Each structure stands twice: as structure tokens, then as C-alpha cells.
């Protein structure tokens, strides 16, 4: 997804001379190379200075520019949190914070590199939009949407090498709207970010084993959240699953439970989130997820599928 971001931001900068990319010593080097080559004055490495990176981007925006501040998600939002809050959100400036490695993408690098509560923290800030695309195609659309958004945005990206999931999606990407990316009638899995791949795996397993048809919905825009769309899903499906690479506190699962209660939904609602604890196990991202109860098997088991190998 980071290459999709780099390609898209190049295209945006080609059409608009007021677009800047500021990084804090982390950059998708090869994918960013054309931008650096063609627009050297509008690419800046602030160095290991995340507070200055965010403040500087706010200053650019105060002059009518559109700025992207790019680094590893934890460093992009936690280190300069007050700059994010006061400079970007309080002043409502069009700066997109691009957090690479959102969720647990840096599975081997430990808790300092896990942005497992970033959606909750960013959504608590007034004016801040939060967008988490599931694949490179959505990442490109999300980058464009953030550039057009007239306020601050947090673009939560995975890493590199994510498969394309939405090439044949039945619905287009639309900022602020849930997106049906796989049709189905019996079960609906609502998810966001690269973990959506797991939702596809669950859907295929369940359809093969049980004959139930499974829809997958990308909740790429977490703020403003499409609450009406979520209420509709909770009303229309007998079984709804929320799956997220994020803490159970303040994520999409909590929203779904609240909306289900408010809309008196009668569906069965299963939520799969990271536990509210730091992660001290290492391994692949799938290994980390499994340690927190997020796996195809666990979800199939919760849905009573014959495909489950654990019960």
C-alpha cells in the first residue's frame, strides 16, 4: 500500500504545485523516488523531528498548501500528539498524517512499533478524519480523498505487499461511506485495513463448507463513520462480524455494539479485536493476531461453521 500511496501523491503533486510531502526519516524510498526527482522542493526529510514535522506541515497548510506528513504510525501520531491536536485539529488544517505500519504490521518490532489503539486516539480528536484502506487500490483512492478533504486526516496504512482485494468490488470507494467489496446474503463481515484479507478467507471457507453466502464490507472511513450504513447492515443480516487489527477499546467493534443497541438490531453480532493489552509475542502478523484470538479458524468457529478446525 505504501507504493500505491507514493504513486498517487506523485499524481496529485503533478496537478497541484502546492502539495508537499514531509517525512521523518522514514520513506518508501524507491516508490517515492519519482516525487523526489521531479519535485525536490516539495519533498522534505525533517529528520527525527516528528513534532517539527507536524508543526511545519500545519504552517504549510496555513499558507494554502496541502501537506502529507509521513512516517511509522506510532511516531507520526503519538510522539507529536499535541501538535496533531493543537496545530492540525484545533486549527482545522488540511494536513494528512500518513501512518505506515498501522495496527500490528510491524509484528517483529515490538510494542513501540504497534499502532494498536491509533484509531481510537485519532477519532477522539475533533475535526480529524480517519481512513484505513484495505489494499493498494483503496490506498490510492484514500490518498486522493485525504488530499481533497478540507481538514486534518489520519491515513492508516499497512506496509508493503498487501494483495489487491477490491479489483472486482461491487461498490466504489466513497469517502465516509461503508463499501460492499464482496456480495453475500447470510453473513456480513465488516472490517478495515489489511486484515480484510482474513475476512475474505473466512468468507471463502464458510461458503465452501456450509453453503452460506458471506458479504465483506470495507469500513475504510472510520471517521466520519457511516453510522446509517452500519445500522442498515445490522438490520439486514442475521449474522454480523466485526474484524479489526485494533484494540477492543474505541475501535469499530465498540461502534457496532453501540449502533446495534441504538438501532435495536436483532442480529447476532460477533466482534474480533485485539485485546486491550500490549503485545509481547513475536512472529508474523498472523501469529500476533492468533495470539489475540483473531484467526480464520476462530471466526469460523464463532459462526458455527463446519469449516472450523477448532470449536
Amino acid at each position, binding site marked *: 500500500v505504501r507504493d500505491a500511496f507514493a504513486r498517487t501523491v506523485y499524481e496529485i503533486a503533478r496537478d497541484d504545485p502546492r502539495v508537499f510531502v514531509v517525512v521523518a526519516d522514514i520513506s518508501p524510498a524507491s516508490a517515492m523516488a519519482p516525487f523526489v526527482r521531479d519535485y525536490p522542493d516539495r519533498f*522534505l526529510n525533517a529528520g527525527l523531528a516528528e513534532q*517539527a514535522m507536524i*508543526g511545519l506541515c500545519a504552517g504549510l497548510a496555513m499558507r494554502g498548501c496541502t501537506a502529507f506528513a509521513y512516517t511509522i504510525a506510532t511516531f507520526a501520531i503519538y510522539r507529536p500528539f499535541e501538535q496533531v491536536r493543537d496545530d492540525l485539529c484545533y486549527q482545522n488544517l488540511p494536513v494528512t498524517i500518513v501512518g505506515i505500519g498501522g495496527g500490528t504490521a510491524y509484528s517483529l518490532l515490538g510494542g513501540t512499533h504497534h499502532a494498536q489503539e491509533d484509531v481510537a486516539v485519532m477519532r477522539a480528536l475533533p475535526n480529524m478524519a480517519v481512513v484505513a484502506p484495505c489494499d493498494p487500490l483503496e490506498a490510492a483512492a484514500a490518498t486522493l480523498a485525504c488530499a481533497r478533504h478540507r481538514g486534518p486526516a489520519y491515513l492508516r496504512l499497512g506496509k508493503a505487499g498487501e494483495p489487491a482485494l477490491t479489483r472486482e468490488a461491487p461498490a466504489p470507494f466513497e469517502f465516509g461511506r461503508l463499501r460492499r467489496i464482496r456480495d453475500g446474503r447470510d453473513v456480513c463481515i465488516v472490517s478495515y485495513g489489511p486484515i480484510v484479507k482474513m475476512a475474505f478467507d473466512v468468507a471463502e471457507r464458510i461458503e465452501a463448507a456450509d453453503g452460506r453466502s458471506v458479504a465483506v464490507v470495507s469500513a475504510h472511513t472510520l471517521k466520519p463513520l457511516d453510522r446509517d450504513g452500519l445500522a442498515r447492515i445490522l438490520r439486514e443480516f442475521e449474522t454480523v462480524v466485526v474484524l479489526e487489527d485494533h484494540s477492543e477499546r474505541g475501535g469499530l467493534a465498540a461502534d457496532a455494539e453501540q449502533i446495534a443497541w441504538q438501532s435495536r438490531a436483532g442480529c447476532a453480532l460477533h466482534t474480533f479485536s485485539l485485546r486491550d493489552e500490549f503485545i509481547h509475542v513475536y512472529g508474523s502478523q498472523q501469529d500476533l493476531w492468533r495470539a489475540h484470538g483473531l484467526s480464520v479458524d476462530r471466526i469460523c468457529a464463532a459462526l458455527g461453521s463446519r469449516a472450523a478446525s477448532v470449536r
Partner: protein
Amino acid sequence: MRRRILDISQTVPALHIAPAFSCLEIVDAVYHGLMRRDGPDPDSFILSKGHGAMAQYAVLEELGVMSREDLDSCGKDGGHVGMHPDIGLPGIEASTGSLGHGLPLAVGMALADRTLGATDRMVYCVMSDGELEEGSVWEAMMLAPTLRLDRLIVIVDLNDYQSLGKISEIHPNFYPVAPKVEAFGWEAREVDGHDPGALHAAVATRRGGRPLMVIARTVKGKGVSYMENAPIWHYRSPSPDEYRRALQELEAVS
């Protein structure tokens, strides 16, 4: 203008009166004689030490940018003017109040100007010496000369006081500031911060080619003897009796 600030202090608690008196001549000198305030690309002013807002408000009122009603509404129910600058108020370009934010903003503005070709546009940023303790300041300090932002002028209101006491006692190695700033690639000047002529001259005679930091020595609470260098006045507003004594001193001078 000290009189106006003193009057407002009688209706607003916690006016941060001494920090405003400390930087009043600095803010006034920027608006009168340094800043180009007309044309399509006017110069910018950021009060990074946002708790000195009353100084900026008083100057903006005198210039007719803020109205008398604006300042009269300060701190009142339904009023839109508070203790710290808020973007969108007349003449206010940035919301400050938390220290260490203004300089990175100013660096971004100056970078945009340089990159987009508004080459004669200046950015002025007024900071406090206590504010220099914030790490974000040194991040931006490192960046500004790297980016060759020679139209960025920072004036430090250097009064050796922070909220709880003397900076030179809290951080004995904090001073001198000028060599530290110069080591980061800035041009530094030291002047009397209550002398508008000296402030103007420091900017006018700069060598250029790099950002300038004017280290302006000031007295916190300047103009009212019992407020000068007394930490309690960082924050509080005077009682009616204290107000009368302050008024007598200010009238004696004028």
C-alpha cells in the same frame, strides 16, 4: 496600552498580565515598523508565547484590527476573545497557548513562501525564553537554517522567568542562549527588548542568508514595580487596591 491591559484585568481573572507587559514593546515594534501589513502577501506574525496575548490584542486594537468590543468581550460569557490567541480572530494567524508550537508553524509558513515564490514575505515569531525549554523548539531550530529560511525572524522575550521561578536557577546551563542558537546555524543578536529602536535596528542590520533570532532582554511585568520579576504575576490579575497602585505608577510615567 499597559493601561488598557490593566483595565481588562479588573474583569478577567488570570490575565497573564506580567508576560504581556514583558513583550509589549516587542510586539509593538513588530507591528509598527517591521511588519508589512498590506498588499497581496502581507508579512505574518505568530505569538508563540500565547500567554502574552493581551499585548497582541492591545496592539491590534490600537491598529484598528480588533475592535474595542472585541477586547471588552474578553473572557466574558459568550465572548469570543480568550486568554490565548485563537485563529480566526481579527489579526490572529495561529492558535497558540501551549508553548513550543509557534516556531514549527513559522518554519512551515516561511518554507511555503520560499518554495512558492513569495520571496519578500517575512514571518515574525515571538517566543519566551522559558519556551525554549520545549524540545519541539530545538527541532524547528535545527530545520530553519537547513531550509535556508532567511525571511524568518524570531524575537525571544528573555526575562529569565518561567512560571515557577528563575530560569537561571531551574536550568543553570540554559544561558547564554546566543551561542547555542548560533551553533544551530542561526544569526543571533542581543538587544534591550523594551527599546523599539534597538529591535528595529537588529532586524535592519542583519547579515542575512539565514534565519535571525533577536534575543531581547526584558523585565517580566515591566512598568509596574510590584509586578516586576515577581513570579506570582505570571498568572494572576490584580485586586482593586493593586490595580489603583499600578495605575498610579503607569500614569506617573506617561
